[in-house]
C-alpha cells in the first residue's frame, strides 16, 4: 500500500474505532443511568422490596381477657398447661430421638406418626414442632431432670380457656372455637404467615364463637404480638430479628351473679326453660340461664366429634339459648300492659267493673274465650282482674282496642325488639299486626285476633329476656335502664324512659299494688309462693297455652303428652315497695305459672337480695 492509501485507511479506522468505542461508552452511561434510577431514585421501593423478601413476620397469639362476675369472682380464665416442644432441625436421627424420649414422656403411636410426618418440613425451615400436649406433672419433672439430654426440646406453657362453672353459664358466656387465622386483626401480616403463628393456647388460635366470648371478641382478644424472622429464599428461618410482646385482652366485668345463677340452675333443675334477672339500678343482667346446658370447657378445648354430634342431635336442643331465643306466648303476664293500654285510651279506669261469667263471647262470631276458672270471678274491677287474672276482663278490654295502636303499645314495652345491649344472637320475637297477617296468611285481621292478644295468646310471642325487661319497666315505673351483661370503659348506662302521659303516678301506684297482690294477697293467683321469702314481691304469672282449647276437660286429654302441656311463666320484681331486681322465668311444659315458675323466681330474687 502506498503512503496516502495507508493514511486514508488509518483515518478511516480512527473514525470507525471512535464510533464503536463511543457506542460502548454510551452503553456504559446507559447502565449507569439505570443503576442510578434503581439505587438513588428507586431506593425506597427497592429497599422495601428487599426487606419484604427477607423479613418473615409471624403473629404471636395474645391471651384473652378473663371474665368476672359482679362480685369479682372469675367466670372464665386462662389455665396453664405444659407442652413439649422440639426443634426438629437440631434432631439428627429422628428414630433414636423418639426412642430416647419415650421413657420420659408417654407417647401414643398416633402422636409419634403425626410427629414423624411433620418434622421433616419443620426441620428444613428451622421451625418448632409440638411433640406432646398437656404434659402431666410427672412427665414435666422427669423431663426437667433429664433436660440436659435434650438440647433439641423444651417445655413451654400453653393455656386452656376454662370456666369453673362450665355448665351453668354455658349460654351466656359462650365458647371459643379454633380458627385457622385471625388476619382481620392484623392486616399487616400476610394471611399465609398465620400457619406459623406462635401459640399461647394449647387448642390453637381461638375466637369467641357465641355468648360474651363472641359479643366482646374485640375487647377480650387483646393484640397479637409479632416475631420477625430473617428468612432466606428457600423459606428457611435464619434468626429472630425482633419480637413484639402480645398484649393480653382486657378483662370483662359482667353483672352476672354466680350465686343467683346457681339458684336458677338448681331450682330449674332438669326442666327446660330459662331465667333472666335484671338489676334495676344498673340495668345489669344478673342471671341469664337457659336449660338444658352443655359444657363450654369441652367445647372450647376440643370436643370429640362424637360428643358434639350427641349434643347437636339432642332433641332438647341444649345449644338453643332459650333466655334470648325462645319464643313463648307471654300469656297472662301481658295483662299489666293491656291494662295500661285500657287506662291510656280511656277504655277502662281502676273503678271500671264487669261481671265475669268465666268466658267472653265474641259478638261477631260467637267464638268463646274461656277464663281459667269455670264459673268466673263474679264482679271484677281492674285491681281484682290482675289478682285473679280474669281473662274476661282483659278480653273484653282488648275487644275495644285498635289493633295498630295496641301493637305499637306492646312494642313500646320492648316486645318484638331486641332489648338487651350485648346478648349474643338475641331474637326480637314478634308482635303481630294486620299487614303481617295478611302477608303471611293472606287473611284479614279479625277481632278475635285482637282479643287473643289481650290475654297474651295467639300470634304474640316474646323471649324471657323481653319479659324480664318488661318486668323492669313495670318495676321502675318506666325509668328503666337498657339491660346489659357487661359494662366496659365507663360506658354510660343508657337510661330509658318509658312514658305515657295518660298514665299518672297514682296509676303506677295502683299497678304496683295490684301486682303485689298477685303474690301477697289471699286472692292472688301466685299466692302459693308468698311464704317462701321474708320480703314482698310483686309479679304476674301466666300459663301459655300451646293448643287452643275450649274446655278444661279437653286439656286433660292433651296433658298426657308432655310436650303439649302449657308453659309456665312468671315475671316478678322486689323487694317491694322499692324493687331492686326484676326477674322472668319460663318453664316449658311446666303448666300452672305461679306454682311452677314462681318458686324459681323467688329463689333467684332471694339469692340476689340476701347476698
Amino acid at each position: 500500500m502506498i503512503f496516502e492509501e495507508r493514511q486514508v485507511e488509518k483515518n478511516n479506522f480512527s473514525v470507525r474505532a471512535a464510533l464503536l468505542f463511543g457506542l460502548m461508552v454510551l452503553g456504559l452511561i446507559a447502565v449507569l443511568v439505570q443503576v442510578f434510577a434503581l439505587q438513588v431514585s428507586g431506593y425506597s421501593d427497592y429497599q422495601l422490596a428487599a426487606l419484604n423478601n427477607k423479613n418473615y413476620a409471624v403473629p404471636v397469639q395474645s391471651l384473652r381477657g378473663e371474665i368476672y362476675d359482679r362480685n369479682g369472682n372469675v367466670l372464665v380464665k386462662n389455665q396453664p398447661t405444659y407442652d413439649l416442644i422440639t426443634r426438629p432441625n437440631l434432631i439428627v436421627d429422628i428414630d433414636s430421638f423418639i426412642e430416647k424420649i419415650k421413657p420420659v414422656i408417654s407417647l401414643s403411636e398416633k402422636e409419634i406418626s403425626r410427629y414423624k410426618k411433620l418434622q421433616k418440613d419443620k426441620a428444613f425451615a428451622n421451625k418448632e414442632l409440638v411433640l406432646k400436649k398437656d404434659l402431666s406433672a410427672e412427665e414435666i419433672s422427669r423431663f426437667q431432670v433429664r433436660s440436659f439430654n435434650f438440647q433439641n426440646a423444651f417445655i413451654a406453657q400453653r393455656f386452656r380457656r376454662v370456666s369453673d362453672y362450665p355448665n351453668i353459664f354455658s349460654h351466656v358466656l359462650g365458647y371459643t372455637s379454633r380458627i385457622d387465622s385471625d388476619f382481620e386483626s392484623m392486616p399487616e401480616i400476610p394471611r399465609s404467615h398465620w400457619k406459623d403463628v406462635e401459640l399461647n393456647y394449647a387448642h390453637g388460635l381461638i375466637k369467641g364463637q357465641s355468648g360474651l366470648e363472641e359479643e366482646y371478641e374485640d375487647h377480650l382478644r387483646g393484640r397479637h404480638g409479632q416475631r420477625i424472622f430473617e428468612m432466606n429464599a428457600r423459606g428457611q428461618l435464619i434468626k429472630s430479628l425482633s419480637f413484639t410482646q402480645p398484649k393480653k385482652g382486657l378483662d370483662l366485668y359482667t353483672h352476672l351473679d354466680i350465686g343467683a345463677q346457681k339458684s336458677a340452675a338448681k331450682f330449674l333443675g332438669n326442666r327446660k326453660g330459662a331465667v333472666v334477672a335484671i338489676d334495676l339500678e344498673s340495668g345489669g343482667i344478673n342471671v341469664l340461664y337457659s336449660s338444658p346446658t352443655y359444657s363450654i370447657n369441652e367445647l372450647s378445648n376440643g370436643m370429640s366429634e362424637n360428643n358434639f354430634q350427641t349434643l347437636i342431635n339432642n332433641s332438647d336442643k341444649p345449644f338453643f339459648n332459650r333466655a334470648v331465643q325462645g319464643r313463648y306466648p307471654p300469656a297472662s303476664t301481658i295483662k299489666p300492659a293491656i291494662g295500661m293500654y285500657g287506662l291510656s285510651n280511656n277504655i277502662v279506669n281502676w273503678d271500671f267493673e264487669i261481671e265475669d261469667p268465666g268466658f267472653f263471647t265474641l259478638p261477631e262470631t260467637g267464638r268463646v274465650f274461656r277464663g281459667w276458672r269455670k264459673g268466673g270471678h263474679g264482679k271484677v274491677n281492674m285491681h281484682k282482674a290482675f289478682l285473679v287474672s280474669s281473662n274476661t276482663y282483659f278480653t273484653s278490654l282488648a275487644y275495644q282496642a285498635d289493633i295498630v295502636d295496641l301493637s305499637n303499645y306492646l312494642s313500646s314495652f320492648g316486645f318484638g325488639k331486641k332489648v338487651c345491649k350485648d346478648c349474643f344472637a338475641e331474637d326480637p320475637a314478634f308482635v303481630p299486626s294486620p299487614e303481617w297477617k295478611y302477608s303471611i296468611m293472606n287473611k284479614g285481621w279479625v277481632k278475635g285476633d285482637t282479643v287473643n292478644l289481650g290475654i297474651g295468646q295467639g300470634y304474640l310471642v316474646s323471649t324471657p329476656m323481653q319479659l324480664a325487661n318488661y318486668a323492669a319497666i313495670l318495676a321502675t315505673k318506666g325509668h328503666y335502664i337498657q339491660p346489659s351483661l357487661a359494662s366496659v370503659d365507663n360506658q354510660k348506662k343508657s337510661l330509658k324512659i318509658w312514658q305515657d302521659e295518660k298514665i299518672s303516678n297514682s296509676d303506677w301506684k295502683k299497678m304496683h299494688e295490684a301486682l303485689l297482690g298477685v303474690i301477697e294477697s289471699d286472692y292472688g293467683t301466685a299466692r302459693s309462693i308468698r311464704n317462701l321469702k321474708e320480703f314482698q314481691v310483686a309479679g304476674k304469672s301466666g300459663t301459655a297455652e300451646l293448643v287452643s282449647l275450649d274446655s278444661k276437660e279437653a286439656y286433660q286429654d292433651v296433658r298426657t303428652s308432655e310436650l303439649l302441656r302449657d308453659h309456665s311463666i312468671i315475671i316478678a320484681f322486689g323487694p317491694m315497695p322499692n324493687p331492686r331486681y326484676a326477674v322472668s322465668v319460663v318453664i316449658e311444659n311446666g303448666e300452672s305459672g305461679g306454682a311452677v315458675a314462681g318458686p324459681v323466681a323467688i329463689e333467684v330474687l332471694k339469692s340476689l337480695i340476701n347476698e
Partner: protein
Amino acid sequence: MNKSLQKIYFDPYLFFSLFLLSTLGLFFLFSASNMDTSIVLKQFIYIVAGFILMITISQLDPDIFRRNAVLFLTFSFLLLGITYLFGPEINGAQRWIRLGPFSFQSSEFLKLAVPIFLANFLFDKKLPIQKKEIGISLLVIVCCFLFVFRQPDLGTALIIAFSGLFVLFLSGLSWTFIGGSFVLLVVSSPFIWNIILQPFQRQRIATFFNPESDPFGASWNIIQSKVAIGSGGLLGKGFGEGSQTHLNFLPETETDFIFSVIGEEFGFLGVLLLLSIYLFILLRCLYLALSARDRFCRLVIGGLSLTFAANLIINLCMVVGLLPVVGMPMPFISKGGSSLISLFLAFGIIVSMGTHKKFLPQ
C-alpha cells in the same frame, strides 16, 4: 535491533488497571460465594496464571499471530469438534472439554481466533472491502456463531459474532452494505424469533418486556437482581451484608449476576468506581489501537477490546434489566477459569500489538 530484543513489552496502565479490577473481583467473589475461600483461591490461581500468560504473550511479535491466524482458527474449530464429540453435557448444554482435573470452555478460544483470523484476512485488502471478501468473512462469522449457538450458548455465540463484525466494520465495510444488512435483520427478525430461538430463549425475551407476568418463574432472576441493586442505595449495605445475596434471593451470584452483589453491597458509588476502571481500560485500548504500528495490529486491538467491552455491557445491561437474560459473565470479576484465561490472553495480545513498534519501509 538488539535494544528492542532486550525490551520487555509491558503496558503499565493496562497492567495496573487489570490488577486492580481482578483484585477487587476476588473480594466481590468472596462475598458473592458466601465467603467460600476455596472458590476465591481457585479464582486467585487463575488470575495469577492469567497475568503470567498475559505478560508472556505480550512479548511475542504481532507477526507471529498474523502468520498463525489460520492455524488458531483451525485449532479452535478442532476444540469445538472435540467438545461436540466428547464433551460432557452439563445442565443441558455441551460446552466443556475435560482435561484431567481441568475443564475449559472451548468456545472461549474462538473469541480470540475469529478477530485475529479476520484481521489477517482483511488487513492488506483495498478500501472499500470487496463483496467477495465480505462474503468470506461473513461465512466464517456465521459458521462460528452457529457452532457455538447450538451447544447451546447464545451469549458466547453473540460475542463471537460481535468480535468478527467489529473487525469487519473497522476494516472498512461500506456504509451501504451496513445499512442494507440492518434492514435485512429487521425484516428477518420474525424468522429468527420463530425458528432460530429456543423456547426458553423466547420466554426470556418475553419476560424481559413484561417482568410482572411471572414473578416467581422466568422473571424471578431479573426482579431479584433489580431489588438487590436498588436496595443498595448510594453507599451500599456493606461488604457481606447484602440480604438479597446472602439469603439466596439473588441467583447466580458468583457468575452472571455478580454485578448485582456489587450494587447491593457497595451502592452507587461502588458501581461508579468500578465502571470508571472499565472505562479507563477501554480508553487505553482505544489509544493503543490508534497508535498501533500497522493495520493488522489496529484491527486486532480494536476487535479484541471492543469484544471485551461488548461482553461487559451485555452483562451489565442484562443484570440491570436493560436487556433480556443471556448467559454472559462479567469480565475479570465473575467466577470462571476459561473466561479469565481467555481475557488475559486477549489483553496479552492487545499489549503485544500495542507495544511492538517498527518502522515500516517507505
